[in-house]
Each structure stands twice: as structure tokens, then as C-alpha cells.
């Protein structure tokens, strides 16, 4: 079980999150897909830090990614609630307020 396995797994998880964000139209599922992508990046940084354990740079960066992801989820869900108040749906195809 070498580091390449971890990196390949993180790439596949990132791809799953990207597909979910691009294909789904439900805003909640799209926010969850963003969380999937952020988590896969954490796996990659921890694997590299484990391979070069001279310092904690990768783990410190993963720590900051977790903190910023929490802030992003809070603001994203607030935007989702504001959008639901206006449109009464979560379908992102209906998000055309700034379009015309």
C-alpha cells in the first residue's frame, strides 16, 4: 500500500465530487459535492505529508482547509435559504435573476 494508491484514490474522489457538481441540479447536492472535493484534497495532502514527515506542513494546510470548508458550508447554506425564499425551489436551472 504505497502513496500512489492514496493519490489515485483522492483523484477518483475528486472526480466523483466534480461529476456531482456538474451534473446535479439540486443546490444541496451540489454543496455536498463541493465538500467531497475538499475532502479528497485533504487526503492527498495528508498522504504527501506522511511520505515526507520532516515537518507538519501538509497537516497544517489540511487543518486550514477543514476550517475554511466549515465557513463555506455555513455561507453556502445561507445563500441556499435566501434563494429558496425567492424561488421556492432548489433547482439551479431556475437561478436566472442576474441573467437578463
Amino acid at each position, binding site marked *: 500500500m504505497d502513496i500512489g494508491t492514496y493519490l489515485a484514490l483522492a483523484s477518483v474522489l475528486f*472526480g466523483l465530487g466534480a461529476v456531482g457538481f456538474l451534473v446535479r441540479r439540486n443546490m444541496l447536492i451540489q454543496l455536498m459535492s463541493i465538500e467531497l472535493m475538499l475532502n479528497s484534497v485533504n487526503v492527498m495532502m495528508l498522504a504527501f505529508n506522511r511520505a515526507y514527515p520532516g515537518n507538519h506542513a501538509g497537516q497544517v494546510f489540511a487543518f486550514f482547509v477543514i476550517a475554511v470548508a466549515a*465557513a463555506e458550508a455555513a455561507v453556502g447554506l445561507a445563500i441556499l435559504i435566501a434563494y429558496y425564499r425567492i424561488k421556492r425551489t432548489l433547482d439551479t436551472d431556475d437561478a436566472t435573476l442576474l441573467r437578463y
Partner: protein
Amino acid sequence: MSFPGATLFVVTAIFAMAGALFTISSNRPLRAAIGLLVHIISLAGMFLTLDAQLLAALQLLVYAGAVVVLFVFVIMLIGPAAEVDPMQGRIASRALSIGLTVAVVLSVASTVAYFDAPWGVVPDDFGTVEGLGLAIYQQSLVPFEVVSITLLVAIVGAIAIARSPTE
């Protein structure tokens, strides 16, 4: 890597991929949230195989304890309207985005799978509360404080955005 670590990695990898697939394919947001929960818990187990004990605990606390619960609260707040009709139309653009993403991911994954670095010898305090805490407070104190301000701004911003416009 030792045998228990390899076993734990295989089990958590399978559960992480299953949870991610369930999240992006489920039509009901609550089921997607449960898939995200499975994904996050198995990733916390995978962090243990990478000698990141503090981050595994933080992953459980912050993601499983806060983010997923926030998602579930919003799903319950919105109710049945949280469900959007299954995908219809735009087959070409959907197929194009899936195909492009799969192609890029397959090329990247098959390339990085051959990256080979020996697992270095781990110091005693690697990934523990003491080691990572000293690294954060000695080498990245300013980013740490900036992140705390970011969280404060996110709290205020979330309240300001989600507040009812009638007030």
C-alpha cells in the same frame, strides 16, 4: 505499511467511494447527507492510517458533527421542496461533462498511481495534538488567526444573508 493499516485503508477506501457515489446519485437530499456522513467517517478512519490522529478527530468533530448536521437542519427546514425532479434534458452537456471529467480523472489517477516515495520514518509526535499544535502555533500563527476571523465573518455573513428581508 503494516498489515492492519493496509486492511483499514482498503475498508475505508471502499466505504468512502460508496458514500461519495451514494451522495451524488441519490435523489433525496437526506439520503445524500447520510452518504456524505459515511464518506466523512471513513475518511477519518483513513486519516488514522496516515498518522494524522488529531485531524481524524477534527474531521469527525467539524464535518460529521457540524457540517452534516447543518445540512440535515436545512433539509428539514425546507421540507419536501428540497427534492428536485430527476435530471431531464440537456443530455448532451451532461454526457460531455461526465465524459470529460472521467477522462481527466482517469489520466491523472493512472499517472499519480505510479508516484513512488518510501514511507518515511515517523517522529514520535507526528500528527498528535502536541506535534500538530506546536506546528500551528509556532509556524502558522498568523494564518490561524486569519482563519478565526474568517469564521467570524462567515457567521455574520450567514446571518445577514439568511435573515428574512422583511425585518
